[in-house]
């Protein structure tokens, strides 16, 4: 590949990407303000909560001082933010451990589940989306449309309960709880994760396939596609070699948005299958009103979401042919 072209691409793309990163950081900062502000609305504070109603005023005041709860809100916000950035998001009052330790135990599990689900859902969704777009308004497309349209509206717990009924109650193939012993073999891990992955994938695939279809159909109406078809190139080839590279920006965008849905969907799925991930940890934090833990979890999910959007934007910028030719 020609060196100058690559350098030109970088020169035009880098400022754009830098802008996106800056805007993402700003959004993240604003999100942290919102999360912190909402947590402040909780009546009473952590010290009171921890010691209970019977605590003496002195004991509460002492604990407040220990956690810095007696400081004004802006100061606490800055401290919390600095703590989040430097990897010390506070102390979980319910688990009686540092929040970072609690999260460190759960985060790899969540990432594994999300990565495996993405690995399953992306190829399937691409295939469905491309097939659908190529057979636009034919019977196959209409069938797939109704199917994906219904799938996006399914509650996760219906998919999960049906999966349990079929695969572990009727067929007895898979365990209904995703507990992984520490020394499990990869095969055992896959077996216990199969149903959570299946449930998450069903919902994400539908969403992704619909957006892929839309992106490709938008390209199919372009003059260059008609030209290629008139030249006698086979439709499948036109889609794979001409349309797909042009649609890559919107498709990656669709993937990122759908994968970010894995974050929200995981909340229900992890709970149903008793999977020790970050999302079920967050649900526990809500139930026990463990605000430091809850705030940290919320920030991790928001960061992950913004990161996905940033990746999608970057790919879209790099894949933009107008930018490439400049």
């Amino acid at each position, binding site marked *: 590949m020609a060196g100058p072209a690559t350098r030109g691409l970088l020169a035009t793309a880098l400022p754009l990407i830098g802008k996106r990163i800056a805007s993402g950081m700003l959004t993240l900062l604003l999100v942290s303000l919102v999360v912190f502000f909402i947590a402040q609305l909780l009546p009473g504070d952590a010290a009171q909560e921890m010691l209970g109603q019977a605590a003496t005023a002195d004991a509460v005041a002492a604990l407040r001082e220990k956690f810095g709860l007696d400081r004004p809100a802006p100061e606490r916000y800055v401290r919390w933010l600095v703590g989040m950035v430097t990897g010390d998001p506070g102390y979980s009052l319910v688990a009686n451990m540092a929040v970072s330790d609690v999260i460190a135990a759960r985060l790899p599990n969540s990432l594994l589940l999300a990565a495996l689900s993405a690995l399953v859902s992306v190829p399937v969704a691409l295939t469905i989306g491309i097939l659908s777009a190529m057979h636009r308004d034919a019977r196959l497309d209409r069938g797939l449309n109704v199917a994906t349209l219904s799938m*996006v509206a399914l509650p996760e717990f219906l998919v999960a*309960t049906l999966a349990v009924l079929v695969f572990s109650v009727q067929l007895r193939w898979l365990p209904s709880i995703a507990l992984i012993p520490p020394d499990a073999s990869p095969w055992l891990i896959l077996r216990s994760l199969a149903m959570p992955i299946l449930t998450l994938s069903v919902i994400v695939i539908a969403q992704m396939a619909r957006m892929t279809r839309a992106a490709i159909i938008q390209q199919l109406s372009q003059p260059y596609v008609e030209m290629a078809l008139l030249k006698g190139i086979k439709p499948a080839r036109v889609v794979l070699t001409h349309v797909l590279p042009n649609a890559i920006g919107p498709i990656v965008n669709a993937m990122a*948005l759908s994968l970010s849905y894995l974050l929200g969907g995981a909340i229900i799925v992890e709970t149903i299958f008793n999977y020790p991930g970050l999302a079920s940890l967050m649900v526990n934090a809500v139930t026990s009103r463990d605000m430091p833990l809850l705030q940290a979890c919320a920030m991790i999910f928001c960061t992950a979401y913004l990161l996905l959007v940033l990746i999608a934007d970057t790919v879209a910028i790099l894949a933009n042919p107008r930018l490439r030719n400049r």
Partner: protein
Amino acid sequence: MTNAIRSWVKALSGSGLIGLALVVFWLLIAIIGPFLAPYDPGAFVAHDVFASFTGAHLLGSDYLGRDVLSRLLSGARYSVGLALAAALLASTAGIALALLTAVSPRWLDEGVSRFMDTLISIPSKIFSLVLVAVVGSSLPLLLLVASITYMPGSFRIARSLAVNLAQMDYVQVARCRGEGAAYIAIREILPNMIHPMLADFGLRFVFIVLLLSGLSFLGLGVQPPDADLGSLVRENISGLGEAAPAILMPAIAIATLTVGVNLLIDALPGRGRRMAGKE
């Protein structure tokens, strides 16, 4: 009027008709369901728990021996009613704010838009979990949490419509006539964004049904003795191993409601088609 409705129904596709039928069915159930219930939803009427379909209990019995059909009929009222109210609140607030920003000075528009973009970049389930942790989950607060969670999305769509409409010739004419900002927003812009916003309202409704039933399923939504469809799934989760109708039926009920609305919106002409989807 009836003719207009008839021709509108005729224009729907097959899947659109199915959607319409499901939506009408669930709206009816939400209104008259509790009167159709064969038993008191709170009464222990069956001899065994997690019974299957029988003549006396059409949808079986739940984990305490209560009649599943009766509980489902009263649960549907919570699911449909709460979500309808929350979606209405979210859409109305979103449209009102969008109209306000469309006719207000630039700094206000940018400030509000930036704030809404921030809220949108918090995944909706995460946002509502944080809210529920703080305010709790009584029925009015759940309604508020759901509408706050989905209002920014509605604002974003309403704003992009309103900003485009504000550039139209007839709005410029009204401005030259010397009409006030309120007149322009309500009489000139609002009527032209009602149709797309109705489709958006349907989508918000689907999201909110899924959100509220999800929260109830986690035990963070509607609290006992009240129960929506999500709570019914949660309380009967131990019947999963026996494939009890008590757990399947409420889950299927939610699915038919949300799928129905989605199919109907997709069949609407124009904008609705492109927007159907999740979040």
